[in-house]
């Protein structure tokens, strides 16, 4: 933001205002406040418990699926997130099949190529769960993973 502009001279406002041109992100600030109220009302402990329940539901199913390798620690040491590979199928193809099943996952090297090299994989697929995820969606996810394996292997 400026303090004063003439044809011959511009004077900038003092910091931090000189770097805050335009309308402040008012809608975003109000939205953030509403999100904080919403999460506080549910309770962060409750959210963590629910995430853990989803993990406890999803991990055994995924680990039991044929040709699926799950990366990462046991359920008690992770957040609601699970990276995996499907035998014979590239993670981008897995993600594509899941997408058609209505399940969105991340696929790629997750900004961590050295770890991919250490794990010996070109990339992984990664699903994450949160308070708006329901168990039926995890069922659909696991079914989609099994479908991907059948198609590509």
């Amino acid at each position, binding site marked *: 933001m400026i303090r004063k502009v003439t044809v011959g001279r511009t004077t900038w406002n003092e910091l931090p205002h000189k770097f805050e041109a335009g309308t402040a992100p008012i809608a975003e600030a109000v939205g953030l406040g509403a999100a904080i109220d919403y999460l506080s009302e549910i309770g962060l402990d409750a959210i963590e418990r629910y995430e853990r329940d989803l993990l406890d539901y999803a991990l055994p199913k995924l680990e039991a699926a044929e040709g699926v390798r799950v990366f990462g620690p046991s359920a008690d040491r992770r957040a609601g997130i699970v990276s995996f590979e499907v035998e*014979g*199928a*590239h993670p*981008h*193809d897995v993600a*594509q*099949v899941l997408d*058609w*099943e209505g399940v969105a996952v991340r696929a*790629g*090297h997750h900004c961590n*190529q050295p770890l*991919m090299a250490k794990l010996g994989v*070109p*990339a992984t697929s990664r699903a994450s769960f949160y308070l708006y995820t329901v168990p039926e969606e995890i069922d659909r996810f696991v079914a989609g993973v099994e479908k991907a394996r059948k*198609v*590509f*292997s």
Partner: protein
Amino acid sequence: MSSEFDNLYREVILDHYKNPRGHGVIEGADVEAEGQNPLCGDEVSIFVSFDGDRIEDVKFRGRGCAISQASTSMLMELVKGRTAEEVAGMSKDELLDEVGIPLTPVRLKCALLGLGVLKLALHKGKGTALPEEWAGLAQDLELK
């Protein structure tokens, strides 16, 4: 999902992915080149041996998504026996027609990785021109 699925992963794509043609290494190849798509981690290496100006044999190895591997496999069948000059001038569309599926811009790079690597191999081996349109792609695909 079935129609979308059939569009992208039609039977011939899956067949080339699972049973790639010209897959392997040519020991003592006249030239080899490799490339990867850093966005996906797709990798392709191509080996060429010549009989005069003609591509006597061509093989590839690599790993990546079904589209990148299947299109490279199809490419091997398309170019064997043709002259380096001919293949250097081959349009993307000739390969894409063979692949025969609608591709998003990201997937297009997967489909063209093998062709980019092959053109580079021919350039290294026979000094054929690298078309201008490949210059940008060559950077994106980290060809070497």
